[in-house]
């Protein structure tokens, strides 16, 4: 479960910057193609935040849909099944979004 390592990176990254504050909210941006399961991050967050400036903080996760442009017909499509196949039959896609894995914002008390 790489979400534990990912959550540790989030907590570590935020705690480093805000070591003297109390963090009350963390907003993450997670793309549908990032390979990260938001629920698993939520599961790990409270445990990872224990004993850090993030303890007790609310976690908010913003999902980013996966969008791609088909190299064959130039159509822009939204990928919902994680595979990605243009209605024209081509799988040759340039991904426009969906791989995001970001700490978007934090709120400090």
């Amino acid at each position, binding site marked *: *479960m*790489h979400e534990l*390592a*990912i959550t540790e*990176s*989030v907590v*570590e*990254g*935020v705690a480093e*910057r*805000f070591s003297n504050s109390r963090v009350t*909210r963390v907003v*993450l941006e997670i793309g549908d*193609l*990032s*390979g*990260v399961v938001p629920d698993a991050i939520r599961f790990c967050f409270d445990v990872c935040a224990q004993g850090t400036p993030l303890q007790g903080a609310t976690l908010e996760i913003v999902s980013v849909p996966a969008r791609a442009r088909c190299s064959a017909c130039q159509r822009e499509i939204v990928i919902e099944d*994680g*595979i*990605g*196949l243009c209605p024209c039959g081509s*799988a*040759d896609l340039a991904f426009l979004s969906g791989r995001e*894995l*970001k*700490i*978007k*914002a*934090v*709120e*400090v*008390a």
Partner: protein
Amino acid sequence: MCATCGCSEGATPSMAGDHAHDHDHSVAHVHAQPLGRTILLEQDILAKNGRLAERNRAWFASRRIAAFNLMSSPGSGKTTLLERTIERLRGRAAVSVIEGDQETLRDAERIRGTGARAVQINTGSGCHLDAGMVADALRALDPPRGSLLFIENVGNLVCPALFDLGEGPKVVIASVTEGEDKPLKYPHMFRACDVLVLSKLDLLPHLQFDRERFFEYARKVNPRLRVFQLSALRGDGLEEWCSWLLERSGPRAEAR
């Protein structure tokens, strides 16, 4: 004010829908907001791993080391493929190996049995290698200039896909015993890789594995995959695989 990140930055004029100013949103930056105490970060969660991976990549380039990240489910035959690859490359290239497993030194011992250098990383409960672990292993391994380095990741088709190690090509190995729908079931891995190896061809007569369908599924997920089909035990396809590896080493290594 920047419409994406909310920063009020200098005098750069910005039209509606236009987002031109001299900071890059992929780079973390902090600025306090006048309203509330929300601080916008836009920080890549894997930034630290990414920095360490870039450091590994630069180190490989400076020593002309071609590094390959081998990933698969457990039991696809990664270590056997490496043993036979090392035997076949004897006298043609220096090879060293970083072995990743949750426990035991067994794989590193198998590789050392072929005469190649190897270090073992035991991740404990960890399910993947990261760039920091590889950097530590490199210090212990000290691979020679101009050599080939294989990083055998923890057997897992999920997590290793996400972590850049600073390698050159990422290689996914699937064996014919695994079923032809693996690429559809684990699309992140097959999408993240540059090369696909189908292994254990010698077992085909005993299975109902539809190769054509397997490659059709793989290309559906990633049409850019370079494909090799081989049997490490019998030797089919090994020469083609080794030639490709050798092309990656030396002065033109970066060109792929």
